[in-house]
């Protein structure tokens, strides 16, 4: 399932202004970090990979994922998972149903689906949380549910949109290492957008600006 995320001369312009210019390969288990001040095109780069770029932008280039050209595919067919700044759990569904929403239809039968969900909860130290209202969980618990939900959909790549910036310092280290270790163990190519140097260091991979220039940390 996993393979390289290949950004081939991806250039995005807004009006006359070049906002993104990336030529980069991200290997399975590797984390590419994009850093830059707000408004510098970090989110635009992610939107292009996600397939949700607004029509106000013009783009050229290619995005390959595990050898598949996903440049013009609609978001739900790309196999690209996404973690937001906030957990964005669905407020009307229980924790278990949030996970079930992500589980592909190929996992058939109630027992098998429930087992997959319980297994995911166990891995996140949240055993027995399936029936809980997401609004009653702590920030760290919610962040872990959000990651497990993303992984259950079996993505081929992972996009991380400043997912640690809203967490307080102690939780931040803990959730970051949880997420990064999952990226490595699942062998997913990942793109991390952040403005925090600690995040970039922990990610361990190359660090660049949205225009492709290397950043020294």
């Amino acid at each position: 399932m996993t393979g390289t995320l290949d950004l081939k001369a991806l250039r995005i312009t807004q009006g006359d202004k070049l906002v993104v210019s990336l030529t980069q390969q991200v290997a399975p288990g590797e984390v590419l970090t994009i850093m830059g001040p707000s408004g510098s095109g970090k989110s635009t780069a992610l939107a292009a990979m996600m397939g949700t770029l607004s029509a106000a932008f013009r783009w050229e280039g290619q995005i390959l994922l595990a050898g598949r050209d996903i440049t013009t595919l609609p978001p739900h067919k790309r196999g690209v998972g996404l973690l937001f700044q906030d957990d964005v759990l669905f407020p009307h569904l229980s924790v278990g149903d949030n996970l079930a929403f992500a589980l592909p239809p190929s996992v058939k039968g109630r027992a098998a689906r429930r087992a997959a969900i319980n297994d995911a909860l166990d891995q996140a130290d949240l055993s027995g949380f399936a029936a809980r209202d997401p609004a009653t969980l702590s920030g760290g618990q919610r962040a872990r549910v959000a990651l497990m939900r993303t992984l259950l959909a079996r993505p081929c790549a992972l996009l991380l949109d400043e997912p640690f910036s809203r967490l307080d310092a102690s939780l931040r280290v803990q959730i970051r290492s949880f997420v990064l270790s999952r990226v490595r163990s699942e062998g997913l190519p990942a793109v991390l957008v952040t403005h925090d140097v600690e995040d970039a260091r922990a990610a361990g991979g190359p660090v660049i600006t949205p225009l492709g220039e290397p950043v020294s940390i």
Partner: protein
Amino acid sequence: MITGGPLRWAPRVTVALLILPVTAGLLGTVIPAFNNDANGLRDLLDWPGLRPAVWLSLTTGVAATGLSLAITLVLVASLWGTRIFTLIQHLLAPLLSVPHAAAALGLAFLIAPSGWIVRLLSPWATGWTQPPDLLILNDPYGLSLTLGLVTKEVPFLFLMALAALPQTDVARRMNVGQSLGAGRIAAFVISVLPSLYRQLRLPVYAVLAYSMTAVEMAMILGPTRPNTLSAQVVIWMADPTLRFQATAAAGAVLQLGLVLLALVGWRLLERLARRGIVSLARAGLRAHALDAIARILAVFAGTVTAGALILGLAGLTMWSVAGLWQFPDALPEALTLRTWMRAAPDLASTGALTLGIAVTATALSLALVLACLEAEHRFALSPDARALWVLYLPLLVPQVAFLPGLQFAALRSGVEGHWLAVAAAHLVFVLPYVFLSLAPSWRAWDTRISVAGLSLGATPARVFWRLRLPMLLRPVLTAAAVGMAVSVGQYLPTLLIGGGRVETLTTEAVALSSGGNRRLIGTYALLQMLLPALGFALALLLPAILFRNRRGMAVAA
């Protein structure tokens, strides 16, 4: 996007559904007015009541609109941010859901010479032991009609103002204005009113068009010698000899012209007012003394409008269960369910038909509105000002000006008199309100939820059904309740497209109003009011029950 081929067409279909009936109906009304050497027009001009009828239509319409707008603005300006304001917000939905006919009948019970107010004052204050021979109801100046219109239009304009206020940055502007030394009213008029009015303009035009041409309210509360122009047009149309069809058409065309004239005049007044505000700002208006007066006025006007509506409805309820109730007793001697039991079979069948029409028109409207909003989201469409005008078209063009043409079309195609045809006619009026009620919440939804769903591999359709629709259940049900209320309250489309054979609670209540059986009128009007109220109760209860264990779905304070 690959999915949703038909979805792309939803906005165009909806626009067509609003424009086609109105324009076709207008043509169908205008042409007969000028047929046969414009006989209809000549008959109209020969009618001795023409001048007073035209005058009444103008005065009651403009007075009701001006008063409603003034009351709404003074309420917002002096009470915004206070506890009374919150109370008014809670009262709003039930007041809005009262159909025009029920409101008018309630008011009639209240202010008639034998009504509640006179009873409460008699005989100790007035000395009357018999109902006085006064023409309070149906007064020749249309004062009671104007009052009736105001009680219904203030809640509507107030709701529209509430929806517009967050976009006017009201809190900060008021703070800045007052910190510069202006009084509360002055700060509101100079800093908030211009941008608030820009968004209130279309609703105000709709109120003006409606107030000038309201038929059922005019029949219950309005003058009778002569009637207002639109009431007279309907009387001509309903004439069984069909001799006055052309006269009615000519009257409808004149009514349309009058509304256009009034709208142009209103537009000029707007300009004058704008200049006035600018010069007030230049003069450094402070007007601190005005604040206390305005506050008293606001509380008084709010109490009178809401009180007239609430007391009127209480009067309806009382009459429906009254046994012997002689003048000048304030309360009936005994309470009985006899009227209800005797009317029960008729009430049940009429109520069921009313509900069936309302559910059909609302379900179709809701489906179209949801399709439009979803198309807007998926194809990143941004509707412009013209789209809003289309939405308001059926509310701006007087009903008497285009429904006769539609009735003619319905008659020709043989669908006249079928309840489905009536439901289709209701759709034209229900759809705009459903859209206006749902669109703000739908557009305010956090679209990151949608991106999160898509990134998990869910199709756009699955995101719509499993995420967006359930999360927006409360506003969707509220919009449906608004739609039901609008449909239940429709008088003229039901009367004309139904060919008099589709009897709903509203047409029955209006038909009974000329009779004088207050007990029976009470039952019909009360049921007419209860159906929409039930809808609003469900819209409140259902999400509360379904999401009782979901704190994230609670109503934001």
